[in-house]
């Protein structure tokens, strides 16, 4: 009996210790990079690294006034918004049809979505590169958003489907008897009923689009470069200017941290559902 209690205590203590060290492991790099971004150039290059220093914001003001970094930040906002709007506009009716409407070959669409989800980025970036140059979509916000929309579509459809599936199908029937068309059921009942799920889907899409690199690298040149490319541009002279590199990184992270703070529950739900579907 005694032994068991001690064992239980120890196992609990270990759980706290382990969780604590993993939290440290997760947070420390971000903390460290934040400190580097606030160091003066001399402090950032000191050996051994400084734990205590006088914070300065010169790196931030410098990169914010940098020729293109600010533009990439706002490009990313625009592209993310267009991408989310497009993907939801396409995913909503599709999810509704897959969940509630009688349709031959529904399963086939599902399998196709899984396949599209698995394909590596460069398989379609290169063909799209040619198509985009030909159609003039290359290096445009819309062109990039179109590709992003495509990439987040499968996950959006899975997430929305699982939210829709939670709605009692009798509600459809009741609405049908009241005289609703499919479209009215979707817009007047399903969408209002799953608003939190819709927001969760949008947030997950936003995180994915905001953080994407390979497609942006392949399909933009200057006009529509995203923030990930903006950060990448500081990679070259990294050893010389850690301040700029870390400050750019922190700026790129901030919107995602805001999302995580507001919508942690939604993100967890989205990730979990996405995993179960995928």
């Amino acid at each position, binding site marked *: 009996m005694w032994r068991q209690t001690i064992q239980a205590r120890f196992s609990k203590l270990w759980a706290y210790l382990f969780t604590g060290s993993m939290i440290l492991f997760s947070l420390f790099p971000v903390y460290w990079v934040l400190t580097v971004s606030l160091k003066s150039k001399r402090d950032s290059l000191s050996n051994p690294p400084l734990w205590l220093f006088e914070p300065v914001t010169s790196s931030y003001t410098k990169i914010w006034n940098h020729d293109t970094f600010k533009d990439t930040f706002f490009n990313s906002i625009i592209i993310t918004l267009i991408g989310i709007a497009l993907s939801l506009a396409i995913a909503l009716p599709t999810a509704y049809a897959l969940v509630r409407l009688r349709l031959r070959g529904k399963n086939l669409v599902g399998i196709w979505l899984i396949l599209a989800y698995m394909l590596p980025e460069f398989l379609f970036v*290169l063909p799209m590169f040619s198509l985009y140059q030909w159609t003039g979509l290359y290096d445009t916000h819309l062109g990039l958003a179109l590709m992003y929309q495509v990439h987040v579509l499968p996950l959006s459809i899975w997430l929305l489907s699982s939210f829709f599936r939670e709605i009692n199908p009798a509600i459809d029937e009741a609405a049908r008897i009241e005289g609703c068309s499919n479209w009215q059921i979707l817009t007047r009942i399903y969408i209002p009923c799953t608003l939190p799920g819709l927001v969760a889907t949008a947030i997950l899409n936003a995180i994915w689009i905001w953080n994407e690199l390979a497609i942006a690298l392949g399909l933009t040149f200057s006009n529509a470069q995203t923030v990930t490319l903006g950060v990448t541009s500081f990679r070259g002279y990294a050893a010389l200017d850690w301040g700029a590199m870390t400050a750019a990184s922190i700026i790129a992270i901030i919107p995602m941290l805001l999302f*995580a703070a507001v919508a942690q529950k939604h993100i967890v739900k989205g990730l979990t559902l996405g995993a179960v579907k995928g």
Partner: protein
Amino acid sequence: MAKALQTLGSLSAFWFIFPCLLTLIFTSVYPVSFGIIVSLTNWNWGNQLDYVGFENYLNLLSDPEFWVVVGNTITFAISATAIEIALGFYLAVQVEKLRIPTELIRAMLMLPLMVSGIVVALMSKVMFDPFLGIINHLIRIFGIGPSAFYGAAKTAMSSIVAVDVWWQTAFVFVIMLAGLRGLPNDPIEAARVEGASEFTIFWKIRFPILRSLLLTVVIIRIIDTLKVFDIVFGTTGGGPGLATEVVQTFVYRTAYSYQQIGKAMATMILFSLLILSISIALQSLQRKVESS
């Protein structure tokens, strides 16, 4: 007439999925057919476009560099996935044991997941710097190092694996924690009443129920790590030499630096086939686990 109604019903349903179908055609049928056609040519983005048959494929398969790249990719995928699964699952079990509101704990542990791959890569460059980086400074306290990390062929790949572990372990953790919390309580309590130890309860009751979910996470992570690009591109760019070159950085280089689109597309087609067969194999394994 009843038949007419039925077709009318499914016609409206068809319009509901029409945009999605269009998107799928636009983004999978077109690129795949384009890819297959171009992979049979020696196109270089320019005017030169000759049919070369399977030359690109044959050249690739006989090119030792290609096999090094494939080997690197698979090594990376397997080691990163293995560590992430073990660490993430173990962490989920430990956090679940705490039995306290874990919202804040989960939020802190999830932080890396919110960071984009390229930012993770640049952050790691700052920390892994051989001379001024904090990591070398810290491990010196334990009498290890200093290490060149990305600078040396021997350590570059492990460094990238470590970065991916930092980045993606939380994914495994979040899903497995949700899985653990979703377990039915009754069988566990029944086992406790029967006097089973926590160890037995975990391996005999909880783990078997979670096995299918765990396998799903393995599939997702394997496919994701096979497709790795950002963190390699942002850190070593494939070097030193070929030490960390993976398929997607190899293709990027082939297409954009060397302008060999035919070869790049041939690589992508082969690689997609590899991913497809791996995921089919894993999914059939999962079906077996589910039915047993």
